[in-house]
């Protein structure tokens, strides 16, 4: 099963001024796990400044959100089916794992939910 192209996530996020404004206090790197691949997503003042595939275990994000490829595929459908429509719905169903320092995630939870859902089909 093919992996996902996250290269446009930054342009989708950075072009949304309301989302960037809501994330204006966010300066960190977090890990988005898509199947076997981890991506390190760096954010400065609400804008994504870098997305890199994680090659070294010594490079890590402040927290991680991971799910399998089929789960993200369903999450990123235009109208997701139940259990896949929101990261916390996926959490309730055991389809996603969240680890690390969760404080910045919880301080900006809707921002991160909306950021990740920007990869959704339009």
């Amino acid at each position: 099963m093919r992996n996902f192209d996250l290269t446009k996530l930054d342009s989708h996020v950075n072009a949304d001024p309301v989302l960037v404004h809501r994330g204006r206090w966010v300066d960190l790197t977090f890990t988005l796990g898509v199947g076997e691949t981890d991506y390190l997503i760096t954010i400065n003042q609400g804008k994504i400044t870098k997305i890199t595939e994680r090659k070294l275990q010594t490079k890590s994000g402040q927290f991680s959100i991971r799910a399998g490829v089929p789960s993200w595929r369903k999450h990123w459908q235009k109208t997701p089916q139940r259990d896949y429509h929101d990261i916390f719905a996926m959490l309730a169903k055991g389809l996603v794992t969240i680890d690390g320092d969760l404080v910045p995630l919880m301080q900006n939870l809707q921002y991160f939910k909306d950021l990740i859902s920007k990869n959704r089909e339009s």
Partner: protein
Amino acid sequence: MNIEFEPITGKYFTLDVDGTSYRIYMEESGSGIPLVCLHTAGSDARQFRHLLCDHDITSRFRVIAFDMPWHGKSNPPENFHTTEYKLTVDAYKNVVTSFVSALDLEKPVVMGCSMGGRIVCHLALENPSKYRAMIALEGADNLSPYYDLDWLHRPDVHGGEIQAAFVSSQIAPQSPSQFRHETLWHYMQGGPGIFKGDLYFYWLDGDFDKASGKIDTSLCPIYLMSGEYDCSCTPERMFATAERIKGSKPILMEGMGHFPMSENPALFKQYLIPVLSEIADG
């Protein structure tokens, strides 16, 4: 003057619950069979504004919605600052039964959502002949927490923001944006620690799957209504509850989440009207 006022009347009164006085805010509209509406954890009675304005409902029902103590425009008790709010099964039952008694409501229908959907089953178990029927929206007799309640009340996380961000997972993606965000707005306005205290009842003190089978639905009909996208009171949990409460009527609401009356009022009406008609005509 061209103002078109809504047909809702809001009132305050003092309710005594086991010797404690609460200044309670309630709204009502219509006449006929009393229909008492109980809001979800961490929110308030504004969730029911569409029902209160719907002539198809208020022409046959006296719709009454009130803010629970500590919620909305109802006050916490005197000296509330010396206690930690934590709702229990008994405390919740006492508030609702005191409210029904104070208003002299005869055989009301009680419709609650989420924690309200759980307490109506507790009330039916305790005194079924006191009520005409119960409607449990998004209410099951056995639930499972999926996040840590401490995130809801701590100084480094904004309570209103995190509450809304948590419950946004329980709204169907098909629900109109206007009503999705109005539902979330209510969650942004709760008092510190109140949603957390409600969830103590909802997740930790409220399971009654061992007792729910004793509810006598011949004395008090029970309707269980759950949204397809509810990830808390899932359709599976509703149907499991219905298996245990013999004679109860489960209704799956497709394209709906955890807040039917406020997240998608038009769709909810399609599911609710047949239930209300059956109750009124039965």
